[in-house]
């Protein structure tokens, strides 16, 4: 799988979106404004005015960003040209994270246009999707690492090969560093 060309394409696409974001007129109070009542506190203002025209662009930005994360993980897990069986778990994680991200954006679209907000486990719906949906999906990557370490990260054959390399390495070839005896001298 040509992971590095894919990474390059994704990064260029993010650059294009970044330029588009820079060129689009900044909505008023896009990064919040000073709170009218309390010092050192920012006020979010009207979500609809801040995000309505940019929701799609930002959603695409988020999707590309999640794909970059998955591609980087795949680069780290790659052996030779293959992914040692990690292709399906990573593909499913990418899909699940994009679904969670999409649900987050959709629920926020609803959130920013309504006044009453029900809470789920102490959070409004979009924030709940973020913390209880997107976060666990990204944490899955760590689960894969731990569960599949022997299969996908470092097999017994890899370790044996590494031991062979270590055994064949002459001390003189190693990075120049004074020995303990030299330091004592």
């Amino acid at each position: 799988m040509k992971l590095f060309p894919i990474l390059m394409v994704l990064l260029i696409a993010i650059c294009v979106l970044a330029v588009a974001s820079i060129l689009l007129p900044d909505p008023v109070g896009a990064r919040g404004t000073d709170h009218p009542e309390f010092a050192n506190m920012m006020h979010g203002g009207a979500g609809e005015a801040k995000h309505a025209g940019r929701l799609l662009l930002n959603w695409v930005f988020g999707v590309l960003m999640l794909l970059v994360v998955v591609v980087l993980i795949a680069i780290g897990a790659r052996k030779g040209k293959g992914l040692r069986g990690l292709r399906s778990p990573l593909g499913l994680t990418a899909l699940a994270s994009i679904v969670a991200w999409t649900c987050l954006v959709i629920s926020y679209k609803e959130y920013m246009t309504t006044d009453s907000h029900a809470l789920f486990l102490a959070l409004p719906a979009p924030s709940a999707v973020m913390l209880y949906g997107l976060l666990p999906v990204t944490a899955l990557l760590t689960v894969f690492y731990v569960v599949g370490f022997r299969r996908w990260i470092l097999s017994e054959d890899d370790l044996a090969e590494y031991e062979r390399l270590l055994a064949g390495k002459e001390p003189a070839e190693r990075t120049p560093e004074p020995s303990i005896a030299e330091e004592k001298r």
Partner: protein
Amino acid sequence: MEAYRHPIILGSVIAYMVLCIAVGLWAMRRTKSTRDFFMAGRDIGIFVTGIAIFSSAMSGFGFVGGPGLVFSLGMSSVWMIMAGVTGYAIVHFLMGKRLRLFAGLFDSVSLPDAVAVRYKSEAARFLTALAILLGVMGYLATQILAMAMVLQSILQRTAAFADIGLVACVAISSSVLIFYCVTGGIVASVYTDMVQGGIMVVAGVLIFVTAISVVDGGAAGAANLIMADDPEAMGPWGTLGMMGCISWFFMFSIGYAGQPHLLTKIMMIRRIRDYRFIPVVTLAGYMLTALLWISIGLVMRALVVEGVHPGLSAADAAAPEFLQLYAHPLLAGVVFAALFAAIMSTADGFLNIGAAALVHDIPVAIRSRSLQNELFWARVGTIALAIVAALFALYSYYENQRLVALLGAFGWGTFGAALVPAVAIGFNWKRATSAAACVAIASSLVVNFAIEVFDISIPGGLHGGTLSLLVSMVLFLGISFASKPPDLDPDVEAIMDL
């Protein structure tokens, strides 16, 4: 008990400092060579490494700046925590195995050592060391200043030290830091990190439980109060807006793979097969500590908008005021010790990699060989670096506050933009060239410095660090694709095949 609040807090901090000194003395007996001083003899176990990785990343920011950001921006800052979860996964997959394999086979005592071997380039080693040294100076000065200010605020509440000045506090806190870093090198650093991480986890859990009981209705009550005042603050983007949060997530999550104080710790683990369990320890510790970050920020915002607590003089006062007014004195003592722990665990890691850059990497890059009696010079370099950073912090505080902020801003963004392409991607891609690595590192220094010096605000909510990371990654990939594939050392190639 309430009458003893300040003595308890002071006693906890003193006990913690004595513990650090004791660890330094113990570690001195285990530090007999440069490899011990910079790499802990590559003999660190699972728990120590896992906890050191998360605690050195959390820093004082997680205990003061983090709650302050949640107080000020609402849920925006939670994206930094989300970035941590993803970022650690990226670090483990991209760097965990690979970096340890490199360090073991080539006997690397620092990250620039490994970079020089990977690219067969002393220029790449020099630029990596330079980026580390510049970032370290800013980070270290910020940490020393934070440490001194916290100590001053504690001491000034006691009758004996009511008039103590900041210079004296810088001297006291830096002396403890220097003592255990000089005597025990990175061995003392990682073992104090383990103690510090443990204290941080306990503090995070206890504070979370305390915080949600302060507001009527618990966490849901706090959320309702905040939403009644400003629904956006409780929404997923907080007050910062969607692009700002996405931009933070990008920079912080991918940037983790370029933080030299984390990567260096990966190189120290005793047995490579142990690495399997490190992500669990790191992630669990990080998540539990983050509970403090979110809970104090949200609860203090709720209390202020409800009118129960007066407005804050600064957003960063959220955590100290919460501890002074709402936490049990014993808990406040633990958390203040944890705050010191968080700051010191970051500072000691930076001090060590900065000293390595100064006395090992830059001399080797210039002279093609190490200094004679390198261990002695490593200790001298550690002292020199800490003193320069302390003076720099004081000068900046009294004369030009922008200086530390300038170099501090150099930290995360510059490390990310410089080292993610050259190290995190380059160590996993045979086609990556030394020219591409050098250009990526140089571009990160130039772009980040330009953004800070000229105070450039990027429209659209994009963070400057995100822009510089994008630029350096695209340059790195583009130059490598456009160049002839490099001839790799057979051993380097073999390691990259594993």
